[in-house]
C-alpha cells in the first residue's frame, strides 16, 4: 500500500490598482490609520452604488491570459451573501457562475523533477472584506473593524487538484508570484496580506491490488506564507493517513463533508474550525447594481498583444540569446522583471551575456543583499554597468580595474546615467587604469625590470615557473593599467631570448 497527496490551491491576490474595485477610495495597505480610506460605497451606506474599476478588470484579464485561460466574452457580478462585521453590505461582490476566465494552466519547474503543468480551473475578480480586530468574548461589543481593506480588488485563482507534493505546491506558487510580478499585477506581499492561500488536500491510497481510495477533502484556510503551505500539506498528509488507518473513513461515505481547518503557524499544526455547514449557503444573486461586462474577441486580442513577456519565455530567450546555463538564467529571471530587465540592458551594452550574468548575479546581487534594496534603488544604472563591462570585454581595462571603478561608483550613490558614464572615464583616467596597449612603453619597463632581476630570470629559465610572479607585479606597479597577461607574455619572451 502506498499513497499520493492530492492538492488544489485557491490563491487570493490583491491587485495593484490606484483605487478600490467599486469606488474611488485609494487602494493602499494602511493598518495604522483604520477607517481612513473609506467612502459611502465601500462602507455600504444606504443608497450607495458600486461602479466597476476598469483598471482592475484589465489587470485581471491580463493575468487570465498569462495563465493561458479562456477569457469570457460575457461576464457578470454576483453577490455572495453572508453576515460578518467586516462585510458592511452583508454581501461580497464576486463572480459566481460566469467568471471572466477559466480553463488555463501554469507551468512550473519543480526541483529535481522537471516542468510540472498545473491546470487552472478559473480566475475571478472580487472585492476584499475589511478586517476584524477580534474579541468575541464581549458578544461583539469589544470588537473593532477596520474597513480600509474593504472593497480592494482581489483576484482568486483556483487550480485543478493537480499538485502532488509540498514541493510542487511551492514551485507553483513561486512561479505564480513571479508571473504576477512580471505582469505588474500585484506586489504579492504576504506580510501585508496581498497574497493569501487556501489549500484543498486529501490522499489517494493505492492498495497492492491496484485499488484506489480517496480520503475526505480538507480545506486549510488562510495560509499566509509559502512555507506555511508546504508545512500544512505535509502535516495534513500525515494526519489524514493516520486517521484513515484508524477509521477507514473515505470520501463519499455517508456523513463525510469537506472539512475546514485553520493553520497555526506557531505550532505548525492544522486545527479544526467551526463547521461551515450553516454558513455554506451563500444565496448567490446576480448583482442588479452592476451591468455585465462584454468583451469582443478583438478587444481580448488587443489586451493579449499588449502583454509583457512571461518568465518562462524570458528564460528561453535569455538562454538562447546570451548562451547562458539554465541555472544562470533562472537565477536572473526569478529575481523579478526589474532585475531581468537590468541584466538584459547590461548584457546588451557590454555584448557579453556571460560577463553580464556574472556581474549581475555576484557583484550586483551581493550589494543588493547588503543594502537590502531592490534593483530599482541600486545606485549604478544598467547602462553604466554595461558600459563599464564593455571596456573589460574590449580589453580596455582589466576585470580587477572594473571592480575598482564599480566600488567607486557605489560610493557616489544614485547618479545621472550620463554623469555616470563621464565618471567611469574619469575614474579610469585618474587611476590610470586603462590597459597600456603601447607595447613600446611596456617593452622598456620590462627590459629595465629584467635587467635588475637577472637571478629571477635565471630561476625561471631553470624551470621555476612561479619565479615570474614578482616580476609581473613590479612591471604593473610601474605601468598602471598594464594587462597582466600581456606583461607575462612579454617577460617570458624576453627571458627566452
Amino acid at each position: 500500500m502506498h499513497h499520493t497527496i492530492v492538492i488544489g490551491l485557491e490563491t487570493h491576490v490583491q491587485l495593484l490598482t490606484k483605487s478600490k474595485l467599486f469606488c474611488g477610495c485609494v487602494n493602499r495597505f494602511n493598518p495604522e490609520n483604520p477607517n481612513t480610506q473609506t467612502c459611502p460605497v465601500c462602507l455600504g451606506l444606504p443608497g450607495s452604488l458600486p461602479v466597476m474599476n476598469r483598471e482592475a478588470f484589465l489587470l485581471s484579464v491580463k493575468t487570465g491570459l498569462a495563465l493561458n485561460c479562456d477569457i469570457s466574452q460575457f461576464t457578470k457580478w454576483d453577490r455572495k451573501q453572508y453576515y460578518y462585521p467586516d462585510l458592511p453590505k452583508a454581501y461580497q461582490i464576486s463572480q459566481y457562475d460566469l467568471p471572466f476566465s477559466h480553463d488555463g494552466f501554469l507551468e512550473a519547474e519543480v526541483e529535481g523533477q522537471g516542468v510540472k503543468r498545473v491546470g487552472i480551473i478559473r480566475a475571478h475578480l472580487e472585492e476584499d472584506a475589511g478586517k476584524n480586530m477580534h474579541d468575541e468574548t464581549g458578544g461583539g461589543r469589544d470588537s473593532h473593524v477596520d474597513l480600509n481593506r474593504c472593497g480592494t480588488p482581489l483576484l482568486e485563482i483556483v487550480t485543478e487538484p493537480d499538485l502532488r507534493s509540498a514541493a510542487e505546491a511551492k514551485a507553483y506558487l513561486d512561479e505564480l508570484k513571479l508571473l504576477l510580478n512580471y505582469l505588474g499585477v500585484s506586489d504579492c506581499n504576504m506580510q501585508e496580506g496581498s497574497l493569501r492561500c487556501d489549500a484543498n488536500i486529501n490522499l489517494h491510497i493505492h492498495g497492492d491490488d491496484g485499488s484506489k481510495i480517496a480520503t475526505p477533502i480538507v480545506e486549510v484556510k488562510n495560509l499566509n506564507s509559502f512555507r506555511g503551505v508546504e508545512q500544512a500539506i505535509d502535516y495534513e498528509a500525515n494526519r489524514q493517513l493516520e486517521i484513515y488507518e484508524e477509521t477507514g473513513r473515505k470520501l463519499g461515505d455517508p456523513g463525510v463533508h469537506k472539512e475546514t481547518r485553520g493553520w497555526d503557524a506557531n505550532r505548525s499544526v492544522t486545527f479544526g474550525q467551526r463547521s461551515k455547514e450553516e454558513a455554506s449557503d451563500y444565496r448567490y444573486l446576480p448583482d442588479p447594481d452592476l451591468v455585465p461586462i462584454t468583451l469582443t474577441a478583438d478587444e481580448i486580442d488587443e489586451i493579449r498583444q499588449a502583454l509583457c513577456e512571461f518568465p518562462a519565455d524570458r528564460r528561453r530567450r535569455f538562454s538562447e540569446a546570451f548562451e547562458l546555463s539554465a541555472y544562470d538564467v533562472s537565477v536572473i529571471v526569478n529575481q523579478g522583471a526589474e532585475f531581468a530587465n537590468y541584466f538584459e540592458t547590461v548584457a546588451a551594452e557590454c555584448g557579453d551575456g556571460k560577463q553580464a550574468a556574472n556581474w549581475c548575479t555576484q557583484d550586483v546581487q551581493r550589494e543588493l543583499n547588503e543594502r537590502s534594496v531592490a534593483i530599482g534603488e541600486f545606485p549604478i544604472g544598467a547602462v553604466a554597468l554595461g558600459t563599464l563591462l564593455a571596456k573589460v570585454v574590449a580589453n580596455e581595462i582589466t576585470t580587477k580595474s572594473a571592480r575598482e571603478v564599480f566600488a567607486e561608483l557605489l560610493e557616489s550613490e544614485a547618479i545621472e546615467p550620463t554623469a555616470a558614464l563621464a565618471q567611469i572615464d574619469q575614474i579610469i583616467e585618474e587611476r590610470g587604469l586603462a590597459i597600456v596597449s603601447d607595447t613600446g612603453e611596456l617593452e622598456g619597463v620590462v627590459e629595465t625590470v629584467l635587467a635588475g632581476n637577472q637571478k629571477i630570470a635565471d630561476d625561471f629559465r631553470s624551470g621555476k615557473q612561479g619565479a615570474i610572479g614578482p616580476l609581473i607585479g613590479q612591471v604593473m606597479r610601474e605601468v598602471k593599467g598594464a594587462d597582466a597577461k600581456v606583461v607575462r607574455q612579454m617577460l617570458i619572451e624576453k627571458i627566452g631570448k
Partner: protein
Amino acid sequence: MSIVGSTTEELLGQLASGDVSCVELTSAYLDQIAARDPEVQAFLRYDRDDALRQAERIDAKRQSGQPLGKLAGLPVAVKDNMCTKGQPTTCASRMLEDFVPPYDAHVVTRLKEADAVLMGRANLDEFAMGSSTENSAFQVTRNPHNAEFAPGGSSGGSAAAVGAGMTPLALGSDTGGSIRQPASFCGVVGMKPTYGRVSRYGLVAFASSLDQIGPLAGDVTGTARLLEVIAGHDARDSTCVDLPVPEYTQSLNEPLSGLTIGIAAEHFAEGLDPEVESTVRSALDVYTSLGATVKEISLPHSRYAVATYYVVAPCEASSNLARYDGVHYGFRAESFENMIDMYATTRGEGFGDEVKRRIMVGTYALSAGYYDAYYLKALKVRRLIREDFDRAFADVDVIASPVTPTPAFKIGSLVDDPLAMYLQDLYTLSANLAGIPGISIPAGTSSGGLPIGLQLLAPAFEEERLLRAARMFEQESE
C-alpha cells in the same frame, strides 16, 4: 391669484415677474402644511426656518441678477428614502430612524442645482414596501380627498402632499407602481421614468433592478419640468443610461398626430371596478375625438406579472436590506447574547412586518435548491413580459390602462390581507419588470368623490411621447 393651487408654470411666471417672492411663495405652502398636514400627515419632517432660509437665498440670487435654475423658487417634497446630506433619511423605518447620510442623492443634488426649495421629507411605506403608506413605522398618511381613505403607496406622502396643495412638486420612487398608484389615489400626476433614465445614486434600495425615481406634480407640465431636472446620466450609477435628455417642457403642448393607443384585454379583466373601467373608456373616447386610433393589443404574459414581481422584488430586497444588521450604523437592539443574536434581535426589532415578510420570501427563494425554481424562472418570465411590450409597441405608440383595479380603499381595510394589497399593483408593475416609462394622470372621480387615474405606458426612453400624450388628454379635460 392665490399661490396654493396654482400650476408650476403660473408660479414660475409670478416669481419671474416679481409679483411674488420665493419667501412669500414658500410661506404660503408652509402655511398650507400647517393647516392640512396635522390631518393628512404626509410629511415625516419639515423645517419651516430651513425652507425660508433656502427661499431667501434664491430671492437674493434673483435680485443680484445671477442665473437661476429650472425650478428656481419652487418647493419640492422629497420621499424619505433619498439621501440628503446632514439630514435624517429614515425610509420610515425604525432601523434608520437616526441615520444621517454624509452625502446627497444624485436627485437631491440636481434639485439644489436647479434652485428648488427642499420642503421636507415625505412619508412612505417602510423601505417603499407597500401600497398604502400604512407600513410606515412612524405615521399613517391620509388621502387628502377623504381622510378615511388611504393615499396609496409607497410614495403616499409625496402624492398626498401634492394632492393637498402642500407643495407643487414632489419626488417619489416607483418599484412596482409606488408613484403611479398614489398619484391616481390622490388625484395628481405621477410618472415612473424608464429604468436608467434617472440616477438611483442615493436612493435607498428596495429592489435595485426595478427601483426608479420619478416626479409628482399637480399637472403634466410640472411633471415634465421636474423630470427634466432629475433625468440624465450619472457615472455613479452603472445602470443609469448615457442618453441626452430632451427638453420635455418645450414640446409638451404639441399634440401627437396620428397617435395609436393600444388597449390590452388583460387590463380589463375580472376584478376591475366598473367606475374605473368606465373612466378609462371615457378617456379613450376623448383621445378618439382628438384623432387618435385605439387598437386592441395582447400582453399574454401580464397575468404572471404579480407572481414574477413578488419573486424578483423580495429576492433583491432580502439582499439589499441585509446590511441593516446593527453593526455599522442605524438601529441596534439593546440586549443580545452574542454576535449572531445581535443580528437577529436587531433585525427582528428594527423592521416592520411587511419588510420582514418580504425578506423572508426573498431569502427562501434564493436558498440553495430553490434558486432555479423561483429566481431564475422569474427572470425568464420577466423577459417574456418585456417581449410582450416590444411586440405591442411595434403596433401602437402608447398603451392605455387603469392604474389600479379600484379607487382608493379605506385605511385599515387591506392591512390583514397582503395578497389583496399586492394586487393593487396588478396594472403598474409590468412597467417596472419591462423597464418602460409609465404615467398616471387624473381622469375622473368616483361616485364616492375619490380620484381615478389613467395610466399610459410608452417604450423605453420615450418619456417625451408619454408626456405629450398625457398633456393632450389634460388639455382636453381642462
